[in-house]
């Protein structure tokens, strides 16, 4: 039988990789992918906890289903915001300095 600590180690590795991507990467799409990788790690940890704890409940699996649903929604919203960012600043690279548009009315 695989110990729970193995699943948790893998989950935390995925969370760490996602944190690395979110802190080091500057491409908006890579930041979205990093968030999804972190979410995958959290889901593995939740399902493993729900199976290995003394009193089995479907809380972990149910929460993971809700998380997957919300992940689809927030990814769609993130992609729209990314496209808006690109329309306005002509880049999706957060490392490129963005020149603020001057307000001509004032």
């Amino acid at each position, binding site marked *: *039988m*695989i*110990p*729970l*600590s*193995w*699943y*948790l*180690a893998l989950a*935390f*590795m*995925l*969370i*760490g*990789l996602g944190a*690395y*991507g979110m*802190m*080091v*990467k*500057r*491409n908006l*799409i*890579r930041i*979205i*992918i990093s968030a*999804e*990788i972190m979410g*995958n790690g959290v*889901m*593995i940890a939740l*399902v*493993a906890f729900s*199976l*290995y704890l003394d009193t*089995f*409940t*479907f809380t972990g*699996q*149910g929460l*993971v*289903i*809700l998380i*997957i*649903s*919300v*992940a*689809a*929604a927030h990814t*769609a*919203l993130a*992609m*729209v*915001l990314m*496209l*808006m960012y690109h329309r306005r600043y002509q880049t*999706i*690279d957060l*490392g*490129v300095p963005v020149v603020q548009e001057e307000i001509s009315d004032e």
Partner: protein
Amino acid sequence: MLMQIEALLEHIEFLLIAGIVLVLAILALEHKDLVYAVFFFGIMASFVAGFFLLLEAPFVAGMQIAVYTGGISVLIIFGVLLLPIFHDTTRERFETIRKKRLGIVLSIFVIILSGSLVFLFTWPTEIPAVNVDLAQSLEGLAQWLWGNHGIYVQFIAIIILTSLIGSLAILKLEKAEHLNPESGVYGLATWDDDTSEKAKAGNKSEDTVPVIMAQDAEEEGT
């Protein structure tokens, strides 16, 4: 003997899938071509579903493949394809190398902090004897979702609907700004804006309303 072989195969299966998932996650973050990176992410999500099968959660595994591999990765690929081609390659630029090092140090700190949770505490090594039957798990999961926690499902439905409407509204907002960027709320000219602008230009707002109403009456008559 057979139990030992089964346990050994299970360990090998876990280690194999874990290695593939970690390599694919690193490739998704580090591959230069963004489209390939998204493909690697989709394959990684498929292999994560293997862990859910190991953890006796087949419905979650199916949902993981359907939503992550079939939905989210395709959505990200569509987003990438809507961009100009020069965004396909990674262009991470850091003002100083110190910022990149700071990010790496912080992420290593996160890994060490979370790893300490694994090794400092004693976790169960076996699944408890009283467990749910795999064949009945879908029924129990449905009972959990719709029987006891139906309100959460309703909230999730509202969140998804809100994000859908919000995404469409944001896109339409940008289009409306392009159409009429200087007047009205959300870039759309209203009756009050029209009359107030004419009043500012010297026309009396009282005169403009009858003129417009007279034009409407003429159009209806013709």
